[in-house]
């Protein structure tokens, strides 16, 4: 027996048991009721009688007796009255004790945590499916079909970078489930137009997407494909803003950079996980343009501008000083109102 003093035991009882409506039934090995006490009515147990089978009063314990184990714990079981109970069953020399403790608070606490955890797991699965869908074997197969082999080869493409502005700061303030939800919503708004315009999502790096146009054959030139995709991305993000603002949810902005030219394309990685690798000035330039783009702005290089025909009028000249590039660079900007 515990060597704790009676006042300490009483304090522990008051602290952890008293408010949990303790109640008990003492039964024989086969479940025949011998004695009872406590707040049994909390759990819908009324007027038990000596010699009654326990299942007549506690239907959920039908089939539990005789018990094989020395003790048993059934956590957060909904009882007849709807009250959630922890049921502990244990033996002493007197017989088998069935103890009921109200678990409503514990259930509510666990419920919040479990709900978040499960939602997060579902989001994580969705996210990994998304990555697999756009970056996994599909890309490698698509590339093989379109003529890019394991050896690198040069191809004229347009490279698009789209970045969600302020995401890192946002993710530090919010819980992970919310962050994933928001990220998924924005990634979907970016990725779908890329695919619709015949592009390939090459990489998703945190909150930024790199897409390449010109890998699959198309009647539309890669610069035109990429610019059309960029317009649609901005349109999607603006619609998303309206929806989220109406629901008083957080919103973020995006910036886009596009550059066109010859790049080296190749497939890298192991047999089971082959991914595309694009190397060249246009890749770096697109990334630099994206880093300079303001919120809701598309910045494109001269090569791209020259090949977008009727869409040229939507762009204005912008001279930029970019890190790693000598002299000012002639770029073209298209800004959208928020």
């Amino acid at each position, binding site marked *: 027996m515990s060597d704790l003093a009676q006042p300490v035991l009483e304090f522990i009882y008051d602290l952890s048991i008293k408010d949990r409506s303790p109640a008990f039934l003492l039964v024989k090995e086969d479940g025949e009721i011998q004695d009872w006490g406590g707040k049994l009515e909390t759990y819908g147990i009324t007027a038990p009688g000596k010699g009654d089978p326990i299942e007549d009063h506690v239907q*959920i314990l039908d089939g*539990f007796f005789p018990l094989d184990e020395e003790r048993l*714990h059934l956590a*957060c079981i*909904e009882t007849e009255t709807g009250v959630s109970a922890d049921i502990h069953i244990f033996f002493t020399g007197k017989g088998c004790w069935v103890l009921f403790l109200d678990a409503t608070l514990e259930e509510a606490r666990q419920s919040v945590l479990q*709900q978040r955890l*499960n939602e997060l797991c579902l989001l994580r699965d969705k996210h990994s499916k998304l990555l697999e869908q756009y970056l996994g074997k599909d890309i490698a197969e698509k590339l093989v079909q379109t003529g890019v082999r394991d050896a690198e080869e040069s191809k004229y493409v347009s490279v698009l970078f789209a970045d969600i502005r302020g995401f890192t700061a946002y993710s530090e303030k919010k819980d992970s489930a919310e962050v994933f939800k928001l990220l998924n919503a924005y990634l979907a708004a970016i990725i779908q137009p890329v695919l619709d315009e015949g592009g390939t999502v090459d990489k998703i790096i945190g909150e930024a997407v790199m897409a390449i146009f010109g890998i699959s054959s198309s009647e539309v030139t890669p610069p035109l494909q990429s610019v059309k995709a960029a317009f649609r991305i901005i349109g999607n993000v603006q619609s998303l803003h309206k929806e989220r603002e109406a629901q008083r949810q957080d919103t973020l902005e995006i910036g886009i950079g596009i550059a066109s030219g010859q790049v080296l394309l190749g497939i890298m990685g192991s047999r089971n996980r082959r991914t595309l690798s694009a190397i060249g000035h246009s890749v770096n330039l697109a990334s630099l343009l994206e880093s300079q783009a303001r919120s809701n702005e598309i910045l494109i290089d001269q090569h791209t501008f020259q090949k977008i025909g009727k869409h040229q009028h939507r762009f204005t000249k912008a001279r930029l000083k970019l890190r790693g590039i000598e002299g000012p660079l002639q770029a073209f900007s298209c800004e959208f109102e928020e």
Partner: protein
Amino acid sequence: MIKKKICMLGAFSVGKTSLVQQFVKSIFSDKYLTTVGVKIDKKTVTAGDRDVELLLWDIYGEDEFQKVKTSYLRGAAGYFLIIDGTRGDTLETAFKLRDRTEGAIGEVPFILVFNKADIEDEWEIDGKTLEDLSGDGFTVVRTSAKTGMGVEEAFLSLTQKMLEG
């Protein structure tokens, strides 16, 4: 009246609670609410000429951090293994639960329930897998807790199996 305990087993978010709610109350909610512990419902069905009171134990879903405790299964006369057709790994969880259940209470009737049939175009599990499972002798049912498709049939089918067993 005959009474039978049925356990709803499966990974989290496969639709165990929704199936019970659809079967007992003919209601469905799109909002996902996780189950903590066990929720218990009852429904009387007629199988053949016999009335059977089903005691439905809707047990919390299994996830990577939380295994289903076999003590909840005591006294079960049958169980459902619920699978979310849109999540292939939930089939694996179902078979792990089958093994643990048989280890705890022995062989009692069970049915493989492939839920979320209303969005079958999003399924990761293909028709051939279901056919193969049927071919291997498993009882396989497609359900939609949302539309009610196959739900009544699944419960009646298990009830019949329990009475025969």
